[in-house]
């Protein structure tokens, strides 16, 4: 059994499990299930109305990026990752991840419907703003090689293409770009604005952390199974993909924050992007590139520790759905 390759009939047997980590992640993902309507946005709407133009622009711009981005991730999984994976437990996980991306997209849609945005202009932003077009083109560049008929996953070049696309989608898009977006989104809550939107972001972030865990696992296991990929040149190329991703994000951040808002400006976010990118490089087994420090120390409050929720003040975002705990299903009592 290998992770990538052409499918064979035995790939349809879940058991025996060859990649237990994937199955565990699937089970955790199921427990993380949430729905956007659990979040009430009325108070956030009041906040939004009080915001400055620059603040509103930032929120709008984030939405304009995230909404299509979730779907691009799905496309990449469906066309560039799922088909080349043989392991059924990985397929289980990716099926759940794809539902999550869909759920995120619908969640942002829910915010878009609730806030007084010009929806048309939000939807068009990613088609019009050069820095956003560039980000999408970057992802599609790697994806298009996967959908190319000539790709043979059993060759070294085919495997490299798989890793390139995986890194672009999972490490760069989900692991760097999304993370910088989350930091910006959560910064509003840190200033006591958009608290419920912040709760939603907490949920999205919880999901994305799992996606990233899966991606890192996948990269490492594939490298282990295919040592021919471990060359300096290929490593350098992979690093380059991350660096290019950071550069694209830097340009994008200038459009996100043409001016600053309280607590945030483009330089600040760029520094955070570099900090996160260094972490991703290290997780791939490479040295840091930027050596940037984390400017957003407040993120320790936002994401790093357990959150104690006063339930009648805030949505509890740390609950988990758990059908296993009971062991007994609910049944209709006899009349």
């Amino acid at each position, binding site marked *: 059994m290998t992770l990538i390759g052409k499918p064979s009939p035995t790939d349809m047997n879940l058991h025996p499990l060859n990649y237990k*980590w994937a199955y565990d992640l699937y089970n*955790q993902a199921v427990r993380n299930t949430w729905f956007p309507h*659990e979040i*009430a946005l009325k108070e956030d709407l009041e906040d939004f109305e009080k915001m400055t133009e620059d603040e509103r622009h930032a929120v709008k711009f984030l939405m304009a990026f995230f909404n299509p981005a979730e779907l691009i991730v799905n496309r990449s999984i469906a066309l560039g990752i799922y088909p080349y994976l043989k392991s059924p437990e990985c397929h289980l996980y990716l099926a759940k991840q794809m539902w999550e991306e869909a759920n995120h997209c619908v969640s942002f849609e829910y915010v878009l419907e609730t806030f007084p945005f010009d929806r048309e202009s939000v939807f068009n932003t990613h088609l019009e703003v050069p820095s956003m077009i560039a980000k999408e083109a970057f992802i599609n560049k790697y994806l298009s090689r996967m959908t190319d008929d000539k790709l043979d996953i059993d060759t070294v070049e085919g495997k490299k293409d798989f890793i390139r696309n995986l890194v672009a989608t999972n490490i760069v898009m989900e692991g760097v770009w999304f*993370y910088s977006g989350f*930091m910006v989104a959560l910064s509003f*809550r840190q*200033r*006591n604005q958009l608290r419920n939107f912040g*709760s939603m972001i907490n949920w999205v*972030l*919880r999901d994305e952390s799992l996606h990233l865990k899966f991606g*890192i696992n996948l990269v*490492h296991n594939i*490298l282990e199974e295919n040592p021919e990929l*471990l*060359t*300096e040149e290929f*490593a*350098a190329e992979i*690093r*380059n993909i991350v660096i*290019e991703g950071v*550069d*694209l994000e*830097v340009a994008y951040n200038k459009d996100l924050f043409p*001016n*600053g808002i*309280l*607590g945030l*400006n483009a330089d600040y976010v760029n*520094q955070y992007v570099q900090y996160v990118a260094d972490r991703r490089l*290290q997780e*791939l*087994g*490479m*040295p840091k590139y*930027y050596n*940037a*420090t984390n400017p957003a*120390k407040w993120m*320790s*409050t*936002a*994401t790093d*520790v*357990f*959150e*104690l929720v*006063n339930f009648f*003040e805030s949505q*509890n975002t740390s*609950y988990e759905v*758990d059908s296993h*705990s*009971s062991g*007994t299903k*609910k049944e209709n*009592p006899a*009349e």
Partner: protein
Amino acid sequence: MSITVTRHDGKKEPFNADKINRSIERACYGLFDPVSKVTQIATETQLTLYDGITTDEMDQATINAAVQNIKDDIEYDIVAKRLLLKTLYRQVIKDFHPSDEVEVFANKHRISFIDFIETGVANGKLHPEMKAKFNLNELANTLKIERDELFQYAGLDGLINRYLIKDINQKPIEVPQYFFMRIAMGLSYNESNPTEMAKKFYNKMSRLEYVAGGSTNLAAGTINPALSNCYLLEIQDDMRHIAKSVSDVMLLSKGSGGIGASVTKLRASGSPLRKYGGTSTGPTPFAKIIDTAIRAIQRGGKKKGALCFYMENWHIDFPEFLDWKKNNGDDYMRMRTANTAVFLSDEFMKRVASGDEWYMFDPAETADLNELYGEAFSKRYVEYVDMANAGKLRAFKKVPASEQYRQILTELQSSSHPWLVWKDSINLRALNNNTGTIHMSNLCTEICLPQDRDNVAVCNLASLNLAAHIKNKEVNWSRLEESVRLAVRQLDNLIDINVLPIPEAAKSDRENRAVGLGVMGFSDTIEQLGMSYDSPHAWDFADRIFEFVSYMAIDESANLAQERGSYTNFQGSEWSKGKVPIDTLVTLEEGRGRPLTVSKTSKHKGLNWDVLRSKVSKGMRNATLMAVAPNANIGLLAATTPGIDARFAQVFSRNKISGKYLDINHNLVKDLKNMGIWDDVKEQIIENQGDIAGISLIPPHIKEVYKTSFTTSPYAYIEVAARAQKWVDQALSRNMYLETRDIDETMQIYSTAWEKGLKSTYYLHMKPRHTAEQSTTNVNKAAKIGKVGFGALNFSNSPAFSAPLQKSLDVNVPTQAPIVEPVAVVSPMTAKQEAIANITLEEEILVSTSIVKTEPVFSQPVMVKEEVVVQEKVLVSEAPRNEYKPLERVVGEKKYNIIAPEDPADSDNICIACQ
């Protein structure tokens, strides 16, 4: 980058780093190494600036920069707090200038107070009595600005956002000391000497020795003094009353109280309608109306309505009720805002234990069950079971009792609802049971008051801050007594000033004068005393503290009865028969037919309950005295742990209406700093999400004291509550925390709570199994799974890695935060600053608070007619509260103070509970 700052008047001026530095510098006085703090905050502030930033935003940016450093050094909390205070002073105090000398400022603070009251009365915000009844000059001279130093940042921020009175632009018009004085005055109108009593109340609250409940904090002294915190109402089974209940809920919510609402009486779905034929839709759609209604209300204009539905689990629609808080399903059958609690009988708990069936009925056919409790309930229940089996009831369901219990707890695990509340423990132990059955508890499961069609139960709350009564690792019992007595008096005063929006609530409030004095800071206290929550020391200590508070509270209410008369419904109550809470343990055991598994003896031993019993039988001012609320907000305000809760974790975040705050255990930090290991372990503590158990550098006896809520045994939570419940006439909000998801174990834990006589439990917090990737700690997921990936290659010799590969865009790469110009030398503290930083006041302690005096002894309170103020001269240090007299140790080149809490195992002189 050239940056301009937009001033209040709209003019722009160039950014002046020096100005910011100076303001930070002022906020750092008296702290360790102020220069590095100023540099740190100034640097990080600059990082977030942008061109055109307003001066207000600049203030906020400085505060934020200070706040984000608290995780590394709790002294930044002091800086953040002082910076925040400065912005507040600027808005409220006339002619405030940040560089004012202490005395000049204190004077402005006094003068503005008088202006605050006079203007407030003049423009109709404050009650006319606030001016008419008081000597404002004298009160202004009582104000102690230095007590603002007692706050922590998060509490102060919450206070400003939540409680301070605002003008039409939502700008505060009072500062913290005015706030305390406003409440003190607002509860003293009817005293014979209002000014004197207001001073006493003020001194208690401003020292954070007790804090009034939320509604009181919001409304005391205003023209609309809606001061009550809790309402409990029963919804009757007729359309007119359901409609009225919706209206009542809305009116009560507007006044800022939390609501308990019982729906047990509502007939089942499918139950025939009397007049018009057809069948009922059952409780769910009606509850949904109320759920929607409370969303529309901003309590006191500040937070949305909050309510908890109660249902007894013999209701045939109980399975549907169990689903009300599910996150998915038909939205019309789900309560998005309201909470749920199940009201469980002893009969049910016994059937769970014995493996019997549980029958559910339509209340239209079994209406009396809701009114019965104890043996009478069981007898009647069995009769209905027989009728059901004989085919004499229209509808019933049955299910194994243990199966329903399992379903309740499964739902509790996943949605934290319904809370478990025990009907028989509440009713059998009630001292106020002469006015009917108690059909529910309240929003926070600590209130036990009866209600019916004509009475909506009302409770008025305040909480003692136990931690403020600890000095030199000992409880200051006489000060605690003084606090209890004054708090009870203040609560009793509240009732005659209180405004209630519906007559049924006004009637109940007036006739029962129910109050609930709580205790907060329990964990804070035992940590300071070196006890583990999970130890017999802590349990005995809880026992002892609650006995003492209960005794003094009851005694003070009996005093007030002699001064002011008993409450209307006193005759016939258990009080009138000379009963006190501890006496009702036997009643519960008899009713239940089995002993409680909690120690029933006294751990205090110095209190003569017989004397009190005889005094109580002659008259009580209040139907109830104690209730331990969750204190999620006022606990934060008082910078202590809420209620009887354990520390959630040594570091965690609180998601509040006013913002998200990092909560770090100052006691632990101080201990670790004194041991000289704080800097070595602080990152690990965050990495481990506030659990220190796995950090090897921290010695075992520290780990024992500082467990997290998930590593503390759940049985310890039950034991602490059970010990306290012995003495508390109402109940306690008992939050539960579980790491286990084993449902059988969970059932066992909750059954133990019942066996030990708990009246209620509150939220169940489950430990999350998966959390988002941490941002500020060193995360490497590959290392966690033991993979090196490309790390197998040697990059140091790689030409590909030696130079940057590609730079398509110009990236500004600050590897470090930009360095600000060297900060001006921080001037040494002026003598006056020193005075304020380390203030010591000579204060008197009143041993008796009532105008009708009692002797200052615990055993034999005797009436004294004339006012004799018994004084004890005590030196009270205002700040910091816990002063160690540490030894010093030199490690490397640093000098450390050494004070670790003594190891409980080899020390017997710290546990005052065991002395």
